[in-house]
């Protein structure tokens, strides 16, 4: 597991047309990696995420994606993702094919992918319109022991999963502290696993039961301080709630969005420069 620059990791391991999960649940969202995907102008991606948020709004608005598998797509506590909506409602900058799940369905799909199983299971009762509308298959199963009705959701095994974490140690292992969401399951399910971290340390000195991903299952690690901004990294920095609010105005119109993208993403060499431009770097 080499520690390499983020630009190199994306260039080498994220191909046009790949299915790619950037996970993180409010916490540890791999923004820097998403920005680098935009900078390198990847196209035709199948984005996978339980809660696509600003970074997905940006990637979709930038034209990186042609499909999306998700369970909740909004700006948490603020409102809509206007670029996501524009893609679905008006096909701008291109149509976005949607595979819609519930949180629990995404969770068992990642778990199945992480466990080498072809599908995950949930208890199932009467179908909703969500079951009827789903573009991707799901199947009802009957329990051979109890007769109970179940829903099978095909496993998710992304070509690439990217997550952000607090630290990598000298052995190349990665430590995640705090809310993990489904990031660990998405990491374990991936064919290629890229990780960005806040810092490189000699040893974690972590608890016996700490959440650690072994070096040998990671394809590459990149050290990107502030790499989860505007989300947060527990123990490192807080969530930039103001940016989430400000995004509402930036993303509402195509023109303001495009200008922001050009100035901030394409106009920044890397994440450090972006954070300086945003005035949050110290």
């Amino acid at each position, binding site marked *: 597991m080499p520690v390499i620059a983020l630009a190199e990791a994306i260039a080498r391991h994220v191909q046009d047309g790949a299915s790619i999960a950037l996970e993180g649940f409010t916490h540890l969202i791999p923004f820097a990696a998403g920005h680098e995907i935009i900078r390198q102008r990847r196209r035709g991606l199948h984005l996978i995420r339980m809660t696509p948020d600003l970074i997905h709004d940006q990637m979709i608005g930038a034209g990186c994606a042609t499909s999306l598998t998700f369970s909740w797509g909004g700006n*948490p506590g603020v409102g809509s993702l206007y670029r996501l909506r524009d893609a679905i409602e008006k096909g701008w900058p291109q149509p976005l094919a949607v595979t819609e799940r519930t949180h629990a369905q995404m969770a068992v799909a990642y778990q199945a992918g992480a466990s080498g199983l072809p599908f995950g299971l949930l208890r199932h009762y009467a179908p909703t319109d969500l079951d009827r509308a789903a573009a991707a298959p799901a199947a009802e199963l009957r329990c051979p022991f109890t007769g109970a009705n179940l829903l099978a959701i095909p496993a998710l095994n992304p070509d690439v999963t990217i997550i952000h974490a607090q630290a990598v140690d000298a052995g190349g292992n990665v430590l995640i502290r705090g809310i993990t969401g489904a990031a660990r399951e998405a990491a374990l399910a991936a064919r290629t696993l890229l990780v960005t971290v806040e810092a490189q340390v000699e040893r974690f000195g972590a608890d016996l039961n700490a959440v650690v991903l072994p070096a040998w299952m990671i394809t590459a690690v990149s050290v990107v301080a502030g790499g989860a901004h505007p989300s947060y990294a527990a123990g490192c920095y807080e969530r930039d709630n103001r940016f989430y609010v400000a995004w509402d105005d930036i993303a509402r119109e195509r023109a303001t969005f495009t200008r922001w993208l050009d100035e901030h993403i394409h106009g920044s060499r890397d994440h450090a420069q972006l954070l300086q431009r945003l005035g949050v770097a110290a």
Partner: protein
Amino acid sequence: MSAPYTADEMMTVTAARQLRDGAVCFVGIGLPSAACNLARRTHAPDLVLIYESGTVGTKPRVLPLSIGDGELADTATAVVPLPEVFAHYLQRGRVDFGFLGAAQIDRFGNLNSTVIGSYTAPRVRLPGSGGAPEIATHARETLIIMKQSPRSFVARLDFMTSVGYLGGSGERRRSGFPGGGPRAVITDFGILRPHPETEELELTALYPGVTAEAACEATGWPLKRAARIETLPPPQASDLEVLRKLQADTERAHSSTLTIRITPQT
């Protein structure tokens, strides 16, 4: 003359009052979170709060702005992977109360949080289901908080994301759903509850100074009224004091300037 409390405060206090002490509550962000944390600070100190981010038994000192704020993790009994919240807690039947909101609700408490218009060519694409379908399925009781208007309280949902009582008269129960369904819909007019037999939502309580006529006009179907409509007590001064302090503390906590120490990228 301005009221001594806002409509949001009335809703929040009313919602908080639905929660009994010691119950296990699956909390959404916004009004549900405010209501739960108000309840925890007033009549229900042992209310167990679970947020879908995996923070179990959390006791936030200020209101979280997102479902996964650091404050929720720092004050939790346990932080578990998200899949476990849905499997070990919700599907395992350990959740007493689930709190839901939606863009549309129908007379049987079924909810739409997916699209306005058609699914394939939506007029408005909403954020989507999130955890709502499973909360609506498994929580022993669900509480719904929504502002009432003919556009949101509709005769026919554009899309059924989460089940309430389906077509009513026991259809939900007959379909085998383990949770009991919506027990109360708390609106900015009062409370709607399911009729014991038909399970159609009916107006059972109103805030002080609000008329049943106004509530019915704000509903997109002919809203039935319960035989006896209760007038809900206004927020107590102590409720308002606790709620406002919580909100002031929240604002203060979230107003500090963010700085991130960046070191050169390797």
